[in-house]
């Protein structure tokens, strides 16, 4: 568990978040908008179900043969001029990247959005080592100026409104206050353009790594990803091992699914396919490309009962429809990944001991399962984790006792019947002693329960 993970305080975090009116308004706006755009975007896709099946099958095929695909990717990428490194955990990845940058005397690195870099707390580490890291995605730039963490994996500053961003820019960049997103965007363009051209290195993530050709695939809208990966002489890409797809031929289904699921776009403004380094006679590409493949506990997940979580392509659709996420926002989950995919991945990656309250962060309504583009059985996985929480001794003892009593009663019709009668008889007493606070939350017993009304 990393020192600043607060997943164990999920309930307290949530209670605080619910009190924050401006956060709730921002979350409502964002998740409603994304939900509606996503639905509209898929109207044009005649056979969504078979597209999801196809994408899910490709992801499963990769997971079933991950070591072989990783080997193939490494060989192809190195043939194209890249160096591929494997990092067992966050610490190893951080140190590897810091060493690469320091050996080359890098003072400033321009960075495009990468959730894996958030997962390993890369920026903080590099800054400790004296390397300035500039986030260039507008949302990431905003939260970097504010010294916060992302609250959504697609729109990191989703929790901030335009007035907050305007005040932040005025204060930190010394520009006149404006709350017009177009004006604020132009300000960021100007400030960050200078950074791009001055950076000694670019750091990026990747949405996919292609085994056959050794390529990295990045979906972006702003253009910063293209600059980070092609302008500086050194490019370091950090991604986790499960991001492999077998071939560029397998990319189209993901192009059709990922942007639509994430932002409701038919395709992002830019889709970059980067294969190795600049070759003789070429005028594009980094001179040196290092690809860092992070395991960080994924091999362990792959061997377990929740392996399908690794099919995830990080679109964020599950968050936008989740009644819990929509209410409490991303920060309450206390680690890098929020929402339904986040509660599962966080528990798997950081361990039950560091994250067990998160497995309650679901109503089990299944809205996430319906929108998942790669058909991850999220509800099933949540139930498996709840089961594991009990087995591993992290469940609340009172809940455990209650569940055991209910389980015993539910198995015996006579005992169940007795319990029912007792509740009915004790109802006036429950109301009197507990008041509305208790009785109001319980279903009122009826004279003839449903199961006895059946023929």
């Amino acid at each position, binding site marked *: 568990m990393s020192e600043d993970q607060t997943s164990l305080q999920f309930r307290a975090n949530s209670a605080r978040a619910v009190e924050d009116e401006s956060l709730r308004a921002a979350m409502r*706006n964002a998740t409603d908008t994304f939900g509606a755009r996503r639905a509209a975007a898929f109207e044009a896709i005649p056979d969504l179900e078979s597209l999801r099946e196809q994408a899910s099958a490709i992801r499963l095929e990769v997971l079933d043969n991950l070591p072989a695909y990783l080997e193939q990717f490494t060989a192809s990428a190195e043939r194209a001029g890249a160096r591929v490194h494997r990092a067992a955990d966050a610490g190893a990845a951080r140190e590897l990247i810091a060493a690469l940058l320091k050996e080359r005397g890098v003072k400033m690195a321009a960075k495009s959005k990468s959730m894996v870099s958030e997962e390993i707390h890369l920026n903080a580490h590099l800054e400790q080592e004296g390397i300035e890291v500039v986030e260039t995605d*507008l*949302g990431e730039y*905003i939260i970097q100026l504010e010294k916060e963490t992302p609250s959504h994996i697609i729109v990191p500053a989703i929790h901030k409104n335009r007035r907050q961003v305007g005040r932040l820019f005025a204060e930190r960049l010394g520009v006149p206050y404006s709350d017009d997103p177009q004006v604020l965007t132009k300000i960021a363009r100007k400030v960050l353009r200078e950074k791009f051209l001055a950076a000694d290195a670019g750091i990026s993530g990747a949405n996919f790594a292609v085994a056959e050709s050794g390529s990295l695939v990045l979906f972006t809208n*702003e*253009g910063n990803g293209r600059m980070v990966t092609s302008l500086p002489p050194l490019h370091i890409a950090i991604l986790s091992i499960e991001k492999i797809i077998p071939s560029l031929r397998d990319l*189209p289904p993901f192009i059709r699914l990922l942007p639509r699921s994430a932002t409701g776009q038919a395709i992002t*403004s830019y889709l970059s*396919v980067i*294969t190795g380094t600049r070759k003789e006679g070429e005028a594009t590409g980094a001179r040196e490309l290092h690809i860092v493949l992070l395991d960080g506990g994924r091999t362990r997940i792959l061997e377990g009962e929740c392996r399908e979580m690794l099919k995830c392509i990080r679109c964020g659709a599950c968050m936008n429809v989740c009644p819990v996420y929509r209410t409490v926002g991303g920060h309450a989950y206390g680690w890098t990944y929020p929402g339904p995919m986040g509660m599962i991945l966080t528990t798997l990656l950081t361990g039950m001991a560091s994250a067990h309250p998160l497995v309650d962060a679901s109503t089990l309504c299944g809205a996430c399962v319906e929108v998942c583009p790669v058909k991850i059985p999220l509800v099933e996985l949540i139930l498996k984790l709840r089961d594991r929480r009990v087995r591993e001794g992290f469940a609340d003892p009172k809940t455990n006792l209650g569940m055991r009593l209910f389980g015993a009663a539910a198995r015996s019709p006579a005992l169940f019947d007795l319990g029912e009668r007792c509740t009915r008889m004790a109802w006036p007493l429950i109301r009197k002693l507990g008041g509305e606070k208790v009785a109001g939350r319980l279903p009122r017993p009826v004279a003839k329960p449903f199961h006895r009304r059946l023929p």
Partner: protein
Amino acid sequence: MNREETVTRFLENAGRAAAGARLVEDRRELPRLLSELVPEGAAVYCPARSDLEREVLCAFSRRVDDYASAEVTVEEVLAGIAETGSIVCASLEGRAVQASVLPSRHVALLPAEKIFPTLDEFFADHAASPPTNLAVITGPSRTADIELTLAIGVHGPERLDVLVI
């Protein structure tokens, strides 16, 4: 899908992605169209690597060799994809793919026969040995990072025009 349908579909989808897309029936019309599209006196980067690029050079009053200081890039692109209305820039023939992202305007010259009907056909063509850098470009640079309000031209071009020839 025949050629004509592919072109129509490309133009529709490129327009939907907020690119200015139009069909140019006669390539001799190009210099006149470009002198209308490109503001008088703007610094233009045009690599002049293909016949098409050389034919249009006469339309620009001010050319620069350094794309980073250009206001407009005018170039022939590798391909188009009708399914998404995208154009594709690649690092082939010594081309600088960054030239399509740094200037605030990008004008793509796209011969109709270079348009692939679907993403599948394009990627099947490049699966075995893709060039160092492929950029599939759909509309101008955009963000919705502030309150999900669309803002155009974050880091890349504010305006993209595609002339299908």
